[in-house]
């Protein structure tokens, strides 16, 4: 290690030693640097020459920052926007920066005519440093104000929930408050999902059908001076709700402007005694349990007296009635006897399976719990047979009727569009044969019974009317009715169930004073089906086609026990 002395001649001992030390240090330092540099050189070559494939030559795109406008949209089944969040500009002023308040006020009021110039002047001369002029300008107003170039006017970005369809979906979608929190309807139920701001929430409803439904309800409510109305259109196979409306309604863009009463969703939250519509379920359970056959019947010649009640018929025939006749003429006596034949326990089981005894699992938060008797006695069995003494919501009726006609499968009603190919698991609640017989009976009630006005040319409607007296202060009130009609079309191979319920309708001259389901609700359903049929892609049905005739042929035994019956092809 000791370096060789080069020039030592003229140096004495100490100097020489110092030089030696210096040399050694230099060498050590030099060697260290040499090592460091060669390491760097090696690494440099390694990174740049030897393996350039280790890193990509071009950095990956970081992608375009996705645009989010706060709450996610809500769209209908066809993707039409029903609720969206817009970033709006709110106009405020700093009066200290305003040069000519009078002129600014005048030019502003030309763009925003709802603001009065005098008020604006006082705002702009207030001497404060912040004053709101108008919240949530439209894009056009924003542009116009910007173009004015008035100093001292500024914009604040704010988010606003907008419902382009206005009143069309008021109850179903509900609304969100100014702070972006859902306060009612689906906005409330899906608040967290919507706030996460991911994909739009796709509903099962169809805006076009919803429009038709709402329009018919509005017309019916006005024509019969009713206090309210509700309607449901549902796919019988999937349980998807295609349209659902309740009147009176409100504008979700301005929820504060309507009375709290208008927020009540009659289609899901309201529970009503539905009257004869319930005979669908009574007859179905009687046929399904084998308590009676299609050719069977009951004596309906005189009213039933039980305890202090008297059960009588509205369209009384005063004779023995077969099952189809009981259904067609909507006989309370016959239905009550039919329910007795089924038995109290079985009746309760069937109603439970049809989902009529518990609150439905619908996605809206406003879901009514049915009112059922605490103690189910014989008298309850008899009144429930024709829809009194039990109160359920319209959406429950639609769901249960769908199960009766679709071959016996109950699927929970839903307002959310299922993913492609996904179908809710069904539960069998009735036998196939029962369902086929019920379709015949429902058709019969329209062709020959109380639901004649529910027919829609070409769409083979089957259905049942219902008229119930509302419970008043003391017992039932005669004049206050709940009139309803539930229609199914096309009845030989059901696709949709339509329910219209009208709250407290009043008869008029055209209905000869009647305000029953057949006069009030059935025509509305008929018009709805005629208008919606083409939109729902249902080809008009040839009533004379053999398959249709075979599906709906029914034998009505008239006299005693059906020995001398006659065939009726029911259309």
């Amino acid at each position, binding site marked *: 290690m000791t370096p060789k002395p080069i020039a030592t001649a003229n140096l004495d001992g100490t100097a020489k030693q110092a030089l030696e030390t210096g040399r050694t240090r230099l060498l050590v330092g030099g060697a260290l640097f040499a090592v460091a540099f060669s390491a760097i050189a090696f690494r440099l070559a390694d990174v740049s020459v030897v393996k350039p494939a280790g890193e990509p030559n071009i950095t990956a795109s970081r992608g375009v920052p996705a*645009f989010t406008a706060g709450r996610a949209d809500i769209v209908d089944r066809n993707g039409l926007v029903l609720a*969206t969040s817009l970033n709006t500009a709110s106009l405020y002023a700093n009066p200290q920066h305003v040069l000519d308040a009078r002129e600014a006020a005048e030019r502003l009021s030309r763009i925003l005519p709802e603001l009065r110039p005098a008020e604006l002047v006082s705002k702009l001369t207030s001497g404060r440093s912040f004053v709101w002029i108008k919240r949530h300008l439209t894009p056009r107003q924003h542009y116009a104000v910007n173009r004015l170039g008035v100093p001292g006017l500024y914009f604040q970005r704010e988010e606003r929930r907008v419902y382009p369809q206005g009143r069309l979906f008021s109850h179903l979608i509900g609304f969100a408050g100014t702070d972006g929190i859902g306060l009612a309807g689906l906005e409330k139920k899906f608040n967290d999902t919507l706030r996460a701001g991911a994909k739009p929430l796709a509903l099962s409803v169809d805006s076009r059908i919803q429009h038709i439904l709402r329009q018919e309800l509005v017309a019916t409510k006005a024509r019969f001076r009713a206090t309210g109305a509700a309607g449901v259109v549902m796919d019988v196979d999937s349980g998807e709700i295609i349209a659902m409306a309740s009147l009176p309604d409100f504008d979700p863009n301005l929820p504060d402007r309507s009375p709290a009463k208008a927020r009540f969703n009659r289609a899901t939250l309201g529970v009503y005694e539905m009257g004869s519509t319930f005979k669908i379920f009574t007859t179905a359970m009687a046929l399904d349990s084998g308590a009676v056959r299609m050719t069977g019947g009951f004596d309906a010649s005189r009213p039933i007296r039980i305890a202090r009640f008297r059960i009588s018929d509205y369209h009384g025939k005063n004779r023995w009635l077969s099952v189809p006749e009981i259904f067609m003429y909507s006989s309370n006596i016959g239905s009550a006897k039919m329910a007795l034949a089924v038995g109290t326990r079985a009746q309760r089981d069937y109603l439970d399976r049809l989902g009529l005894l518990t609150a439905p699992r619908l996605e809206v938060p406003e879901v009514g719990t049915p009112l059922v008797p605490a103690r189910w006695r014989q008298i309850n069995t008899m009144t429930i047979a024709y829809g009194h003494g039990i109160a359920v919501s319209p959406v429950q009726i639609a769901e249960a009727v769908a199960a009766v006609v679709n071959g016996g499968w109950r699927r929970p009603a839903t307002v959310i569009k299922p993913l492609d190919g996904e179908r809710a698991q069904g539960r069998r609640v009735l036998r196939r044969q029962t369902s086929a017989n019920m379709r015949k009976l429902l058709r019969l009630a329209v062709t020959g019974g109380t639901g004649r006005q529910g027919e829609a*040319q070409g769409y083979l409607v089957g259905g049942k009317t219902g008229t119930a007296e509302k419970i008043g202060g003391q017992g039932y009130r005669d004049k206050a009715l709940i009139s309803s009609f539930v229609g199914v079309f096309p009845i030989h191979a059901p696709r949709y169930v339509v329910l219209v319920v009208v709250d407290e309708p009043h008869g008029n001259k055209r209905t000869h004073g009647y305000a029953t389901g057949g006069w009030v609700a059935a025509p509305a359903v008929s018009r709805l089906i005629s208008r919606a049929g083409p939109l729902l892609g249902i080809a008009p049905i040839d009533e004379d086609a053999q398959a249709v005739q075979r599906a709906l042929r029914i034998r009505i035994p008239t006299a005693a026990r059906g020995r001398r019956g006659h065939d009726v092809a029911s259309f």
Partner: protein
Amino acid sequence: MRGRVTLFWVLLAAVAGFGLFHVKYRVQTLEDDLRRLNAAITEEQEQLHVLRAEWAYLNRPDRLQELSERHLALRPLRAEQIGAIDSLPEAAAADGPSPLRVSPK
């Protein structure tokens, strides 16, 4: 000889330095462009969003119905107006002009 080697290295260092800064500035310009484009895209997306809302608003069924009643002679389709191809008389298809070509009177 020594001088030339030094000059070579000095020149090399200068070229490398120039190259480095050149690349750096170009990257910076590109980054700026990217930021600007991203901002523009976001703005366009926001405008699309507003336009979609307006589209939905203008396509309200009640408004369309009113406009159609006022300006068009269209009426809701009735079931009687829908027919099947099979129900057309056969003679028309076999002979004479195609039924699709016949102009309405």
